[in-house]
């Protein structure tokens, strides 16, 4: 028995050290592979997930579209972002989230617990009141709308801007000299802004990717990280 428990301990140690927890994401994507060897930043990423979906399957109008989801590893950022959006750009939905200027606790807690943003603003309050199963169903058929509102910015652009601003606000708060929740070295290690990571599924049509990039360019975001899986280089012949 001893050799077996020895092996067990080794395996356990290995898994614990290399632990890299899978995020609880409702929408999962399979990223393409590349030979790039640079790692993804550990924190402060703004993930843009694109998941293809086939509409009207089996009919003449069959069409592949991409659904866009947003996520970030900083919960505070998401809260700040929603707050900004409700008070500035989407004031007509503010009454759903605030009761006489007091946050409706239940909705905000659910919002913070959700890892992905993926329903239109008008459905968000109703979505957060649903059961988990219904939420999963809604997310899979949802996505942040990419079409512009009255010729202006799209909901997607509003979200990206708000998330970036939300992180900046949090960063300013947390790196403030009076704030002592983090040590000086931890403060120095924090990235100053969110990195945009595009995590698109292999099968995403280029048209959706183009649309997302165009919208990002419109709001002056031109540097992205495309998330891929590492693939070993194939040795060339005759060398």
């Amino acid at each position: 028995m001893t050799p077996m428990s020895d092996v067990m301990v080794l395996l356990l140690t290995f898994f614990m050290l290399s632990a890299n927890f899978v995020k609880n994401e409702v929408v999962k994507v399979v990223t393409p592979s590349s030979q790039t060897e640079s790692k993804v930043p550990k924190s402060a990423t703004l993930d843009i997930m694109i998941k293809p979906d086939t509409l009207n399957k089996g009919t003449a109008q069959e069409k592949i579209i991409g659904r866009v989801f947003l996520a970030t590893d900083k919960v505070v950022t998401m809260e700040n972002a929603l707050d900004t959006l409700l008070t500035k750009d989407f004031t007509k939905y503010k009454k759903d989230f605030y009761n006489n200027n007091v946050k409706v606790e239940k909705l905000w807690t659910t919002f913070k617990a959700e890892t992905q943003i993926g329903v239109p603003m008008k459905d968000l309050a109703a979505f957060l009141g649903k059961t988990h199963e219904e939420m999963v169903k809604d997310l899979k058929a949802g996505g942040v709308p990419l079409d512009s509102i009255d010729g202006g910015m799209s909901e997607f652009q509003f979200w990206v801007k708000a998330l970036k601003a939300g992180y900046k606000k949090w960063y300013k708060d947390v790196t403030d000299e009076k704030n002592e929740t983090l040590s000086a070295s931890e403060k120095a290690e924090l990235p100053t802004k969110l990195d945009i990571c595009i995590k698109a599924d292999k099968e995403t049509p280029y048209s959706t990717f183009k649309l997302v990039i165009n919208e990002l360019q419109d709001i002056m975001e031109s540097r992205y990280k495309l998330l891929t899986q590492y693939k070993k280089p194939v040795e060339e012949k005759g060398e």
Partner: protein
Amino acid sequence: MAKKKESKQKKMNVRVDFTPMVDMMMLLITFFMLCTSLAKPQAMQLTMPAKQDAPKDQKEKSKTELTVDVYLLPDNKIYTYIVSKAEQYGDPEFLEEVTWGTGKGSIREKLVTYNPYKDAVAPIQAIMNAKKQLDAWVVAQPKANKDVNDSIYEHALSWIRKGKLDVVSNNSLNKAKYDEYDRQSKDPNFVEDTEKLATTINVNIKPLDDSTYDNLVTILDEMAICCIGTYRISNVNVDDLTLLSKKEGTGVQAPAAAPAAPTE
């Protein structure tokens, strides 16, 4: 009798039962195996031009024979379009289907062997050779000053991509040249003498709307492997569609709009 009893006591079994521990271990291992992902994703940096400064003038600067157009089509099809004279644009004869990967007739082979001026070494091959020398140099460096070396490596690689191949020589870094280029890059008044640089190839990547993101990432990866200094993801316009529709086997329908109207 008493003696016998004493010996029996000494021989008492002192083995500890490990089973509960192993059970727990098993559970923990199962938990960690199910909840972790071992493959860490990789990030590929992509920088697109800001909307305001569309590189119109840059487009005209690159010579026709030094530009390779790559079309990404649905069903993982890929075509290259290489013309040597500007007036040959629009002729489907130069459109050629290539394969993914590295073998004969692949996009890699096409790019690496493309030699418009019939030089002794094809331009991309020359750049890749220079990169190999730089790789050899960085491997040979002591591990201690990794950060400094990595920054030197990044700089040197960006210069190699621009055609400054003499930054490496004899499988090592040419320190004198490196310092010279370093000075030049910090000098705002420095004007590059393009005649002195090695030939570099520009690649225009033109994915059609129905092509997949997978293909785009693969071709971007190919750009990194082949050390292409300047590549651009451009949108397909009516002229491109007309060109593709003229070639058999592409499955591209001729655009409905008149090709005379220039779109951008």
